[in-house]
């Protein structure tokens, strides 16, 4: 176990805890937390920012060429979809957009680590996770346009709706995982797990603490996947915690591990490991994916008010896509034709998104009163009847 941080280009040392299931709570609390962007923190890394493949004793995965190509393709497509969504917002087709730029590796790595039977609980920025779950890439746009509150079927794709109230979904994921336990769906490769996404800011919420307590107590097959993108809107992570987030796991009695969140291979490996542990009945894991939000918090935010251009620039050097592309090219896994075909795919899918969003009709007003309850709802029925009658009173009346 290294005492020094992994520096660029050097193999990462093992994360402080989490590797060994037999001693899950071995997180030394006093260890100097390496925060901020001046130094690389200690984390699991399999692909350096320079695109060099490195090994890790606990997290080795034999990726096939096809898999590696697939991961690259995912990264490129979700970034392109994201950039297009930001553009659509600027052009007035979306009310707001929460960009994932910079966090592609964390989302694709963990998203692809999920097995079909696993359940994902996203926040509002996990467009890359939805992509991995097979949710149509246009699905979140109804929410961000103001048409709906998220209009995909969570059960169809095993991907829950977005949750905008910070941290609330962590408890849902734990409860879901408790249900997996009670259904006896753990203990084999066919076992199930849930994964919940949340931010560094969310780690301060009471709900998240309670979720960890429940997960620990009930030994729930859940993976807490915290994308530490260094900011909660304007507040740097130092406003949330003095210890690295992954080290909190020890206090709840399960392993915590920090991974290079801009390294798609490491994110895949660490998440796969944690998910498989969960499905085999070994309980929860907290993963902290150390990454950076390259863009604004949302399109309404102005990040120049609270962070420097040089900080953003330094993170550009650790871009998740560039390093993967360098690696694939050097290793002869991707040639120019391959990269061009990925770009062409991205063009096609992005074009479809644009067309869809621009063509999205306004919702019918009657939707207002639908689905408030699963069973009878006389109050809403009466209000709907009044509303419809009121609406019809305007027909042919001209401007009021």
């Amino acid at each position, binding site marked *: 176990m290294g005492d020094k941080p992994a520096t660029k280009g050097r193999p990462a040392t093992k994360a402080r805890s989490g590797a060994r299931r037999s001693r899950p709570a071995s997180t030394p609390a006093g260890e100097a937390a390496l925060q901020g962007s001046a130094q690389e923190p200690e984390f699991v890394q399999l692909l350096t920012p320079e695109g060099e493949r490195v090994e890790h004793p606990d997290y080795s995965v034999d990726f096939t060429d096809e898999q590696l190509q697939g991961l690259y393709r995912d990264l490129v497509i979700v970034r392109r979809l994201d950039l297009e969504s930001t553009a659509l917002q600027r052009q007035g087709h979306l*009310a*707001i957009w929460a960009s994932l730029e910079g966090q592609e590796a964390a989302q694709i790595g963990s998203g692809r680590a999920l097995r079909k039977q696993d359940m994902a609980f996203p926040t509002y920025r996990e467009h890359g996770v939805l992509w991995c779950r097979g949710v149509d890439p246009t699905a979140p746009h*109804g*929410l*961000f*346009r*103001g*048409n*709906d*509150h998220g209009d995909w079927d969570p059960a169809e794709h095993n991907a829950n709706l977005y949750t*905008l*109230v*910070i*941290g609330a979904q962590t408890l849902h994921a734990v409860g879901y995982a408790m249900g997996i336990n009670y259904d006896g769906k753990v203990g084999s490769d066919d076992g199930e797990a849930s994964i919940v996404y949340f931010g560094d*800011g*969310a780690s*301060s*919420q*009471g*709900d998240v603490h309670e979720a960890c307590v429940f997960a620990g107590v009930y030994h729930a097959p859940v993976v807490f996947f915290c994308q530490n993108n260094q900011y*909660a*809107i*304007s*507040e740097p992570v130092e*406003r*949330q915690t003095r210890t690295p987030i992954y080290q909190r796991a020890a206090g709840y009695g399960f392993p915590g591990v920090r991974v290079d969140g801009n390294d798609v291979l490491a994110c895949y490996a660490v998440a796969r490991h944690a998910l498989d542990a969960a499905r085999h009945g070994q309980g929860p894991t907290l993963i902290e994916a150390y990454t950076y939000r390259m863009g604004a918090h949302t399109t*309404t*935010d102005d990040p120049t*008010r*609270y962070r420097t251009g040089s900080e953003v620039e330094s993170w550009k050097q650790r871009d998740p896509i560039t390093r993967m592309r360098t690696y694939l090219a050097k290793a002869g896994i991707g040639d120019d034709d391959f990269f061009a075909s990925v770009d062409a795919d991205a063009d096609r899918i992005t074009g479809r998104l644009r067309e869809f969003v621009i063509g999205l009709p*306004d*919702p019918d*007003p009657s*939707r*207002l*009163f639908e689905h*408030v309850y699963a069973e009878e709802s006389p*109050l*809403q029925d009466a*209000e709907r009847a009044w*509303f419809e009658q*009121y609406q019809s*009173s*305007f027909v042919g009346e001209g401007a*009021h």
Partner: protein
Amino acid sequence: MAKQQGPLTGTQTLTIGKALNLGLRRALEDDPKVLLMGEDVGRLGGVFRITDGLQKDFGEDRVLDSPLAEAGIVGTAIGLAMRGYRPVCEMQFDGFSYPAFDQVTNQLAKMHYRSRGRITLPVVIRIPFGGGIGSVEHHSESPETYYMHTAGLKVVTPSTAVDAYFMIQQAIRSNDPVIFLEPKARYYEKGEVDLDAPVTAAEPLHRSRVVRAGTDATVVGYGPTMRVLRDSADAAAEDGRSLELVDLRTLSPLDLDPVYESVKRTGRLVVVHEAPTNLGPAAEVAARVQSECFYSLEAPVQRVTGFDTPYPASKLEEHFLPDLDRVLDAVDRTFSY
């Protein structure tokens, strides 16, 4: 929002947002025990910039960028208040005041009662509330009913720049916990404010006010709906109908004397709010008016409110929110009896 330099003085045209900012600034100057706390309120100046420039001028110990935890903000504010501070908490949006609900309703509201008056908690909780800003869910809630329903809390809401400037200072001076509801869709509405007027000379915090005299019907609103009321009164005047408008300003305690007085003259009452109908503020106003003004009423009290649904996606909010047409329709109804 331009940064205020030097002493604040004279009569200025201010937005409601800027008036709040200056009111907070004045409160920080007047009393070293006043603290501001909330998410992004320091460096960023809040997502609506209501606290813009205050951390820079008063320091990180007076304007605290708090961890992202609403129960934590209110709970620690309670402790700070027990230590003699006067915390002003910002909830970033209405929907995010709910994670603090236990601390507000079980703790903040009840401490004075439980301690038989030995503990006072002069805590202000600022909540940008209401809809109409085209945002995503949880950003357009009208939570006033929950807070009005909770004994021990005071609830107020300004609808003009003048009220914003003085009411925030009065709320901070209050020894009771005050839920301070800011009509976020109106932050950019402007008004003339005399910044030199002493806060002690301002209209008392817990007073309702007739803001436009009229003779044919009384229309009551507060906060975000006051603009709808003014527009409705203008339109009604063109049709030859004179509406009297009351701005409640204080939702707890309610101050309904001006409403009773008005209804006794007009005989007709319409109450308007964005919060859903069921058990909403209008229900309380209607119940009290029917018992106080029974013989003066020419028609049943009409309510124009949000529907009893979750707040809809923003493309539907125009149908959810009370507007001029719905107010005038309700006024018409009071004339059909």
